[in-house]
């Protein structure tokens, strides 16, 4: 598809004037400029070597022209000096090209690494609340594929765009210096490039941008269809859908070819400029040489002719890298689309008050907290207040969308209340950094994330310094010991992507073991048995009872089985408000 993208190339600057710019486009441009700035040293280094390569090319072509002129003059002897220079310059150019390629590889690598680190720190600064706004797979692909696709932009497009004007016009100037008439012709043809680009380019660029969008949409549609192919096949509609897909592709091709017919005129204009320069110089120079010119004259003509491809090479390199340029826009847009959440302050000073833990757990005091995920939407939490004493076990119920998960994320410190305050063990959460908050809290969600690694690693990461004895205690308390003998390598069985598959109940036990091992005074659970069948749920509840001892707990659940787990408080939420609050004896 290289050609398709490169023909769409036309002066971006013209486009900037022609197309109205929206605020997000401005932001995108600002981001791209920032990326270019960060990469400037490497870009300049590559452009410099590229310039050296052009200069070496001039010497090379001059030596070739001199050799040929000497031969034509009838001496018949190969000028050894010029031949030496020719061979030397050939080797120099190969070496420069080699170095340039190495630089391109390492500069592309450095840029991608830098971008990844930036994104990582942004992810961590915004925290798990990000997952509320964007799917984890989309975030992961941003971190990997989207950034990977930028290699060409940093490795090829940036140096090519920094180099091409200087390189082209220094060739024209040198030719002019050696041969005025040829220099003028070459300069005229080079000048016509922007002119042609403007005439054919703007119309086609706008049309082809739309076309590119349509092409993209077709790719997305194809991907979507393939992902859902089972749904289509099992509804007995596969053939009809295939025909629809084929029709869409054919329509797209016809429309695309209409645009391409015009768009290829843009690239043909580059060919025209180069070939006209070549033919014109040859024909024009016959007057200077008629009836035998001097060796110097012949040399200058041959030099001018042989330099024509060199003059257009930088522009061609730029066109070839055009598709790389398109990547930065799409990746940049994806990065811009990341929600801008308030960043959590890093941990504060050491002399802050410590949350006080008792043998029965920790005190939790929620006073009038409110929260809103999106502006202009109803409040997700509206003036919620409740208190838990150390050792209280609270059951939180309510229909989905009532704000239970929002409340939990707030208690975990992923988001901060817009109004009101939360005090944990007598200390305001606002005063604590995310790390200090989570030190006091364990959490069990609906489905634990099992990381690629062994079972031991998956449990031990809750408390890396824990002893073997503590690990054994956690294994027993969570009843992992019950299924441990079934695993091929026991504790060393590899889990996660490509590893051993655990059932929902087995995975949830890992989450419980983590909570045991971490031994935090406040335990928060978000529908821990939602994905389990009743028998497994019963088993899990047994383990949870043990976990509740000596801890304050808040459990959000739909399951009636949780009643009688030993709860002391019942909370009911509806549309962001706490509607019922019942303390049991």
């Amino acid at each position, binding site marked *: 598809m290289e050609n398709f993208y490169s023909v769409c190339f036309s002066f971006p600057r013209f486009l900037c004037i022609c197309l109205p710019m929206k605020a997000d486009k401005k932001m995108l441009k600002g981001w791209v400029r920032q990326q270019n700035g960060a990469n400037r040293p490497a870009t300049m280094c590559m452009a410099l070597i590229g310039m050296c390569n052009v200069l070496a090319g001039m010497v090379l072509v001059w030596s070739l022209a001199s050799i040929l002129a000497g031969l034509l003059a009838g001496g018949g002897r190969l000028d050894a000096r010029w031949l030496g220079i020719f061979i030397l310059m050939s080797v120099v150019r190969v070496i420069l090209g080699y170095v340039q390629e190495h630089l391109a590889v390492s500069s592309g690598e450095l840029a991608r690494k830098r971008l990844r680190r930036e994104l990582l720190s942004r992810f961590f600064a915004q925290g798990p609340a990000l997952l509320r706004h964007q799917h984890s797979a989309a975030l992961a692909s941003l971190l990997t594929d989207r950034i990977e696709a930028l290699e060409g932009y940093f490795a090829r497009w940036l140096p090519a765009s920094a180099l091409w004007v200087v390189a082209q016009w220094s060739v024209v100037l040198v030719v002019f210096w050696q041969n005025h008439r040829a220099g003028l012709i070459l300069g005229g043809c080079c000048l016509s490039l922007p002119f042609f680009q403007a005439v054919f380019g703007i119309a086609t660029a706008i049309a082809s941008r739309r076309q590119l969008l349509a092409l993209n949409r077709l790719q997305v549609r194809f991907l979507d269809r*393939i992902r859902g192919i089972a749904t289509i096949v099992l509804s007995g509609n596969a053939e009809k859908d295939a025909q629809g897909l084929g029709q869409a592709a054919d329509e797209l091709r016809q429309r695309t070819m209409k645009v391409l017919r015009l768009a290829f005129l843009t690239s*043909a204009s580059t*060919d025209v400029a180069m070939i006209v320069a070549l033919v014109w110089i040859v024909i024009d120079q016959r007057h200077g040489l008629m009836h035998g010119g001097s060796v110097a004259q012949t040399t200058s003509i041959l030099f001018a002719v042989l330099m024509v491809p060199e003059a257009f090479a930088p522009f061609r390199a730029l066109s070839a890298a055009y598709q790389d340029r398109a990547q930065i826009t799409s990746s940049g847009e994806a990065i811009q689309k990341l929600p801008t959440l308030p960043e959590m302050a890093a941990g504060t000073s050491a002399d802050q008050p410590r949350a006080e833990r008792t043998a029965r757990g920790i005190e939790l005091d929620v006073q009038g907290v409110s929260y809103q995920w999106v502006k202009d939407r109803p409040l997700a939490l509206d003036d919620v207040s409740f208190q838990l004493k150390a050792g209280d076990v609270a059951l939180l119920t309510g229909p989905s969308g009532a704000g239970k998960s929002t409340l939990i994320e707030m208690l975990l410190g992923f988001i901060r209340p817009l109004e009101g305050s939360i005090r944990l063990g007598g200390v305001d959460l606002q005063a604590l950094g995310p790390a200090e908050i989570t030190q006091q809290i364990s959490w069990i969600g609906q489905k634990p*994330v099992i990381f690629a690694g062994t079972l031991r690693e998956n449990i031990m990461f809750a408390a890396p310094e824990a002893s073997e004895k503590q690990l054994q205690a956690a294994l027993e308390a969570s009843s992992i010991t019950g299924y441990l003998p079934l695993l091929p390598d026991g504790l060393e069985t590899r889990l996660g992507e490509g590893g051993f598959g655990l059932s929902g109940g087995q995975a949830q036990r890992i989450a419980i073991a983590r909570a045991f091992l971490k031994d935090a005074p406040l335990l928060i659970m978000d529908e821990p048995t939602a994905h389990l069948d009743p028998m497994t749920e019963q088993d899990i509840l047994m383990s949870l009872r043990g976990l509740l001892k000596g801890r304050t707990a808040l459990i959000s659940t*739909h399951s009636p089985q949780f009643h009688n787990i030993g709860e002391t408080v019942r909370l009911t939420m509806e549309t962001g408000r706490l509607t019922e609050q019942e303390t049991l004896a």
Partner: protein
Amino acid sequence: MRQLQPLWNVWKARGGRLLIGLVLAELSVCAAFLLMGQTGSRLGLIAIGGVVAFGILRFAGAARIILRYLERLATHDATFRVLADIRLWFYRNLAKGAAAGLGFRRSGDLLSRLVADVQSLDSLYLRILVPLATALFSLPIVIWVCLKGSLLLALSIGVIFCLVAFALPALMAKLSYRWGPELQQAQADMNNQALDLVGGMRELRIFGQEDAAAERFLAAEEAFYTVQRRQGQAMAHIHAISLLLTRLGIILALAGCAGVFFPEEQAVMGITILFVVMTALDSIVDLPRAGLLFGRIRHAAERVVDATVMPEGTPAEGTAPAPAGHEIEGRDVTFGWTPEKPVLQNVNFRLRAGERAALVGPSGAGKSSLAALLLKVVAPQEGSITLGGQDMASIQTEALREQVAWLSQASHLFDDTIRSNLLLGREGFSDKALWAALEQAQIADFVRSLPAGLDSWIGENGSHISGGQGRRIALARVLLSEAPVLILDEPGTGLDLETERAFLATLNQLDRSRTILLITHRLTGVEQLDHLWTLHEGRLKSQPL
């Protein structure tokens, strides 16, 4: 290379257009040779004071411009056609064999990767085949031009040309094919670390492991770049070698001008040869990169072709039309995804037309396998299942699936309007029928509240609507079908208890012309059932209601 046979067959259908593209590309290269050859000879003639005509030079210039334009048009048109063909071929084959089975396994990522592989096949023609074929046809022309000078020169230029245009690319293709798995593994490791890091952000924060996870991810990234760098270096070496070889070719042609290979009086011819050799060698110097690309594409093509091969155990296509009756009966059905590990053993059941049954059991007990059997995605290893008294094995698969509609946990919502999501390409449904289905699925009020109504876009996998709303639209899709048998596999997934209850209560109100099999891990208490079956360790037991 044999594995790529099916792809070539797709290409063959467009052989004419692909060939026209190749011919134009070759003609355009010939025009370039003529242009540079003429430039050389005209300059030489002028320099020695000869009488010179420029007709052919002008012609060659014009021809080069026009042919290049036509070549671009023809090759791109052919590419677009093949591109659509390959996608359709892939889609149809996947639909025929593997797709149905994929619905019962988690496979979204696998499919996305396959789609990327299909996309990478696009460059096979434009970036590999066209340049390679042009080089192949240019070789005799270059040798013929050099032969005007001397045999020895022609031979040595020919050898250099073959090395750069064919030997180095072949070497590169072989190397990159061999590196493929290593690079892919490194990239997969990095992607998995990224997924762990992002998906596990909550766990990482709560257990204070964010830095450790970041370190693991960055280590995987470094490992990936180490592999990539090694390949980049090899590529740079081979590119440098091909550049050196082309310079050597130019020096040989230059030596020809100086009388090494033929009498020096023929200087004009020498310059002509030199210019043609320069043009030819310049046009092939990037071919080793095409070799690199080819190695990668071969892996992609193999994965694509593998995916379209029918998996073993796919039931054979039947011939009988769907029977009139809808009673479903299974006799002594034994089935396992791998024969050594049966998930269903000697299972017997009977579901009369219009009856409602619930199949309850823990996850992994084989509930979904039974659904797969009823949809003829797989066939029982022993025993038989009949629909309306007719063995399912003998019924046409598509006809059977028109009788049995399926709502799964993995029912896909397409990035399209609500209307298209309901219809899925079916025709002949009035808006009234659509609304009735939405009504039954208890989502009509929500759809009515949207400004665009039925034509609202629901986003990638229903991202613009909530999970519960998405499940209801998927249900409406199933209810819209006139299939007399409905299989609902965990319809409550992603719904809270109240919503799930309300949803199941609507099923009670459906008219009795439809048979319903509800597959679930727990009952909510509102279901009105004729049968309650439990599945435990491969055995199906009927429970008292």
